[in-house]
């Protein structure tokens, strides 16, 4: 079965790679198969990781312990609320009653926003601003002094560049120009790493073809 699976995987890999020559029916077949299987996979996954363990298993386990569905239902009655909201969310498909789906969406959005407000301040703003307030003179280490100054100037310059409430001229314009230079270096570094990422992904697939399928590499 593993051998068959490897050949299927190799065929599908080459089918996707065939797109590099030109768009063709084999590629389109593989692409549509991927979308279809992923969609079906998601349905089963939601059942296996959400509906069954969080909605059904609590009732079943309590029933196994107490031998009473009445006790089981009374203990876990509150679960009907998220279950109902979850199902109501799917009513978005029907235009006439799709307004009902706003309730679970509001629930999710409200929690997300509430969590984000405290997390943004505690996790982003405070630590990152604090880490920028580094000593601009470190006796005995020219390199650390230089790096600290660069870090501070870079952060302030970048913030100045993205401040669009005033025209970028004079002092703000100069600071913004410095910010642009730092942003360009960061984007360059990001491009370099992106190239690394893409080549790595290709290495992975070629390694599979040579090692697992053709066995010409160990």
């Amino acid at each position, binding site marked *: 079965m593993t051998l068959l699976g490897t050949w299927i995987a190799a065929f599908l890999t080459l089918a996707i790679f065939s797109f590099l020559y030109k768009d063709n029916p084999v590629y389109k*077949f593989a692409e549509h198969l991927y979308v279809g299987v992923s969609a079906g996979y998601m349905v089963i996954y939601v059942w296996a990781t959400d509906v069954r363990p969080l909605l059904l298993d609590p009732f079943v386990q309590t029933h196994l312990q107490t031998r009473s569905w009445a006790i089981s239902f009374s203990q876990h009655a509150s679960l009907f609320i998220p279950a109902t*909201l979850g*199902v109501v969310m*799917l009513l978005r498909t029907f235009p006439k009653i799709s307004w009902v789906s706003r309730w679970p969406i509001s629930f999710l959005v409200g929690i997300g926003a509430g969590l*984000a407000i405290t997390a943004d301040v505690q996790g982003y703003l405070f630590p990152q601003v604090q880490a920028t307030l580094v000593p601009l003179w470190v006796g005995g280490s020219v390199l650390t002094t230089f790096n600290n100054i660069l870090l501070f100037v870079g952060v302030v310059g970048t913030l100045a560049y993205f401040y669009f409430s005033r025209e970028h001229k004079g002092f703000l314009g100069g600071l913004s120009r410095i910010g642009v230079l730092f942003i*360009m270096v960061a984007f360059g570094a990001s491009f370099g790493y992106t190239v690394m990422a893409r080549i790595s992904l290709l290495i992975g697939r070629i390694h599979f073809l040579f090692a697992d399928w053709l066995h010409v590499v160990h």
Partner: protein
Amino acid sequence: MKREIPLLITFLTGLIMIVQFFVPHRPIGGIGTGVLSWYTIIAGFTLLLGIDSLIGLHLKKLQRRQSGWSYSITLILGVLLALGLGIWSEVKYGSALAFGSPFMYLYTYLVVPLQATMFSLLAFFIASAAYRAFRARTLEASLLLVAAMIVMLGRVPLGAAIWGKLPLLAEWIMNTPNAAATRGILIGVSLGALAMSLRILLGIERTYLS
């Protein structure tokens, strides 16, 4: 009422989350924990959103024999294959995710190679883009280019072979100018996100209701 009740739900749930951050003890903490558990259950159903419209779209394409309808058969068969194997694995193995189940076989030999190969195509496109579009037209573009080349070489063994200090230079670029610029961007983004979250909580931002 169709808009007012959702806005009230948004406000109340958001407020519970903020209050339980400062008061994690019972009963507030208990309410917060319960609400988060409900979030997990409801969020699972969001993963299913879109699947119905995907299937509906392709069924319509099939019905009307629109261009590419034969591929729609492949898509729908793919959905049925995954559902069928998933249900069979649940019944026979006790869990679709059981090691060695047909569902996991489908995942390992179909989903994994398809997904991995789709993304590996990007290596070819980035090479093509680098050749055709990456031009040192201005000082800024040249700076970007130079930084990119230093990092690309410094991050592979070849760079150390060319010049021993190249990896150090690449590491310095990541730790100092890169960290400074990305931090500046993050501070700006987080201030914006904070403002947006407040607007949502207070009902000023309502686009999520449409």
